[in-house]
């Protein structure tokens, strides 16, 4: 009995000796640090020797790199030393016959700290960053989207907090405390049924409301009085086309694209002749807008977050979406308290190097302002195009026959 105790003591002493080796280890590290700093210094001095600014910058760069590398090494050493100290502490406790560090308790407590900090952090995010989000929806359907979002958020946030609290709480409460045995509980069909059925019901509610919201948003049958606007994406800009006085857009074909006819508008179609080009997407408030979406080269995405609207622009697959803007730009400026506020349309599908800057300003105005603005826009059929097409005024009636075929998508 006695001898075994001395044996274990010997082991501890051996362990201590091992740790004392740390001293030599740390002195080695110190030497290394010294060396590293001196080389960095040497670089500094060599840098001053050469007048070239380039070299100086390079040297400064390596100094910074060395500096950060040193910090990492230092932190590593500190972690090593703290680890050794903990081991020494553990061993002394063991020698004294006291309880050693109970890592199970330590982990359990950190779980609780993490839970509290996590809840605080999540709430902070909800209240601070949650206030940096998009303003209220500026479109008719967007209100429904936002309602859907709020319902989903309400449900998920409760589940989020409850399950995380249970997870961390159980981790703390049921940590190994030595004597207790776990409760053998392989299954319980009733409970399992309950927590299959409840999520199923909740999700059914979400599916049904979501399905109808989605259907309402995408159910875009043509209505008389829709304002048709073409938008065409290419690397890296959007082109807009408004219908002229006839209220109809003419047809286009990609094979007609040329230097002067960027969109490939088919000017044989009578409807094309008065189509207007615009720089800003100006929309009359409370009118049903139909955006016809095209892409010329790669996939782009027409994204207007303020209107909760998005649809990809796919080459070879013309698409369209409909929405009704409800809030004037000027009103939104007041609401957001930002006098420079603008609605934006930007690309939201990776399309190349300039993807990050493919935006258009969208402006929602009153009917009269819209009419006024529209009358000032220039037609696509410029004099240059006319010359190129050798188009005289009298050729127009000839195109009338084809007009019927050229459907206004």
């Amino acid at each position, binding site marked *: 009995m006695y001898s075994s105790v001395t044996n274990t003591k010997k082991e501890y002493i051996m362990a201590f000796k091992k740790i004392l080796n740390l001293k030599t280890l740390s002195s080695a590290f110190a030497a290394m640090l010294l060396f590293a700093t001196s080389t960095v210094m040497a670089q500094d001095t060599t840098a001053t020797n050469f007048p070239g600014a380039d070299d100086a910058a390079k040297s400064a*760069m390596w100094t*910074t790199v060395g500096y950060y590398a040193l910090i*990492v090494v230092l932190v*590593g050493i500190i*972690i090593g030393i703290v*680890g050794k100290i*903990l081991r020494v502490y553990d061993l002394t406790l063991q020698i004294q016959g006291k309880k050693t560090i109970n*890592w*199970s308790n330590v*982990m359990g407590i*950190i779980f609780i700290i*993490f839970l509290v900090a996590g809840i605080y952090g999540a709430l902070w995010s909800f209240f601070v960053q949650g206030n*940096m*989000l*998009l303003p209220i929806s500026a479109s008719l359907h967007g209100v429904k989207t936002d309602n*859907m*979002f709020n319902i989903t958020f309400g449900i*998920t946030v409760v*589940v989020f907090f409850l399950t995380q609290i249970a*997870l961390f709480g159980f981790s703390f409460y*049921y940590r190994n405390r030595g004597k*207790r045995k*776990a*409760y*053998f*509980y*392989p*299954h*319980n069909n009733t409970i399992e049924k309950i927590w299959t059925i409840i*999520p199923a019901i909740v*999700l059914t509610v979400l599916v049904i409301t*979501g*399905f109808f919201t*989605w259907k309402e*948003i995408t159910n875009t049958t043509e209505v008389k009085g829709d304002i048709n606007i073409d938008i065409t994406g290419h690397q890296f800009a959007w082109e807009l086309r408004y219908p002229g006085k006839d209220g109809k857009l003419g047809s286009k074909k*990609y094979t007609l*694209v*040329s*230097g002067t006819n960027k969109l490939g508008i088919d000017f044989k179609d009578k409807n094309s002749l008065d189509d207007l080009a615009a720089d800003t997407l100006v929309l009359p408030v409370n009118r049903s807008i139909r955006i016809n979406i095209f892409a*010329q*080269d790669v*996939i782009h995405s027409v994204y207007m*977050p*303020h209107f*909760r609207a*998005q*649809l*990809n622009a*796919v*080459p*070879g*697959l013309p698409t369209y979406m409909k929405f009704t803007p409800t809030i004037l730009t000027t009103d939104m400026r007041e609401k957001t308290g930002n006098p420079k506020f603008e609605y*934006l349309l*930007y690309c939201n599908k*990776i399309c*190349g*190097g300039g*993807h*990050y*800057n493919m935006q258009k300003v969208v402006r929602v105005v009153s009917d009269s302002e819209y009419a006024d603005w529209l009358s000032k826009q220039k037609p696509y059929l410029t004099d240059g195009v006319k010359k190129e097409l050798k188009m005289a005024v009298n050729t127009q009636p000839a195109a009338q026959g084809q007009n019927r075929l050229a459907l206004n998508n």
Partner: protein
Amino acid sequence: MSTVTVHAHEVDKHGHGHDEHHHHDTFITKYVFSQDHKMIAKQFLITGIIMAVIAMLLSVLFRIQLAYPEKSFPLLETLLGRFAPEGKISPDFYLSLVTIHGTIMVFFVLTAGLSGTFSNLLIPLQVGARDMASPFLNMLSYWFFFLACVIMLSSFFVQKGPASGGWTIYPPLSALPKAMPGSGEGMTLWLISMVLFVASSLMGGINYVSTVLNMRTKGMDLWKMPLTIWAFFLTAVLGVLSFPVLVAGVVLLIFDRSFGTSFYLSDIVIAGKVMPYEGGSPILFQHLFWFLGHPEVYIVIMPAFGISSEIISTNSRKPIFGYHAMVYSLIGIAVLSFIVWGHHMFVTGMNPFLGGVFMITTLIIAVPSAVKTFNYLATLWRGNLRFTPGMLFAIGLVSFFISGGLTGIFLGNAALDINLHDTYFVVAHFHLVMGSAAIFGMLAGVYHWFPKMFGRLMDERLGYLHFWLTFAGAYLVFFPMHFMGLDGVPRRYYAFTEFESMKQWLSVNTFITWAAIMSAVAQLLFLFNFFYSIFFGKKTTQNPWQSNTLEWTTPVEHLHGNWPGEIPTVYRWPYDYSKPGAEEDFIPQTVPFSQTMSSNLPHDFEDNEAGLEAYDKWQKENKAIEAN
């Protein structure tokens, strides 16, 4: 049949010693072209770790760009040369970084690194087989993977840089070399690499499926398999069924790129030049891609589920709650994962009716996922939790899965997806659920089965520090991103300085970048712990975690064939932890019921009448003794 031959072969080997010439392992047959599943697992793991570190460094590079879009870092020019002129990452190279980061992480780390490592290591060991059904195919699987890695990384050395159309490589962007520099040779290399990768994946998957189905040891019926094996098995089935579709998509893309076909291309004018393509559809590629792509995310998460089920049960000293429900939910997820791919395409211009259908199937898949989460919680409840690093990471996985899973309910809803599609909300969602949860599953597995792989233990306290830093770091990185997404900030943007409205997120971006750098540095703890422990770690005992599964009945020293003598027979399910009446808090699968009379339950003999009779008899006798 193959079981029998391998078995006979092994008996022969042990009868006559190592006298046959092909049993002498040279360095090359042992470490390079090894056909031993344990060595192949290690090869997959170490390659996976190296790829993960590379992909992580790429992410740090683009995080620096996002945090300091205006600042110049001379170091970047030194490191990256023409890709970072004047110390600023170029927009094209930024997209390359994003693309290759995603590709490596999803395919090379979380598919090959995760499934490749743990399916290889655990399937033979846990079902009781001497090796994979086809060890040679298994070896080829690794070397195809290795080749795919080399080719993928080599694309950094071509003139115009690596592929840069996003990891989803949607054509026409990826099909037209004129559309962006990365769509030139870089994209060609990407496609070649992926074809090799899929070949590797298929060879692995076929092996896993046939091993699980044909080579289980005596007594190991399907309902006695650990959840890890169920997860790996279903993952392999998913892979075998879905990866070929990706190859189909990729081959058509190669045709469009190199042979002038128009599968995905139509009506294209690029740089003012009208292209001759006609009649193709870019959406077709998206369908083919996501037909793999969505099962792929379950290929990523299911092995992590299996691993965490096993680790949580072992370290809670408690049977996994609802074993059958866990298996059925895995099966449910696996089946449903094939009919939800369209939720990636709600706003592509696909028929809105289809969008509605895909929304329904997508939200159904949340039910089995919820069941799994609740079962994990019920397993922890009244357990006797041992916080090994593996256990901590498994708990972390559950936490991330809850957070990331719940945001999936938003994105699966087509109406909400309109405004959230391709924003940072999506980035946050899939990084929590794949990037964090699945990686945590992988790390949990590494900590837990390290002793089985290398015969040594990793340092626990370094593991603790690694866990807490990574856990906190991942939440700090990905939680704020949700709010950016809700403000309409798109992903894959090179800089947010062009938009007045996005400038308010610049400070958040800086914060995220620093959190990401901290988390990245914290991985040094893991790398040190991992490589140091391979050589200098504490020697392990045979069953360090007192676990029930078969792999812990093999000797610590590896041998080709796994068990020195006969393969053990299995008598019970793998989760008899803390069974009342048992002496210890675990009963390995190899212990017959006849040796544990005091802890047997009538439930143990459901399909075993003889056993039930013996049980009843013992009960009566015991009562009689008690009465006396």
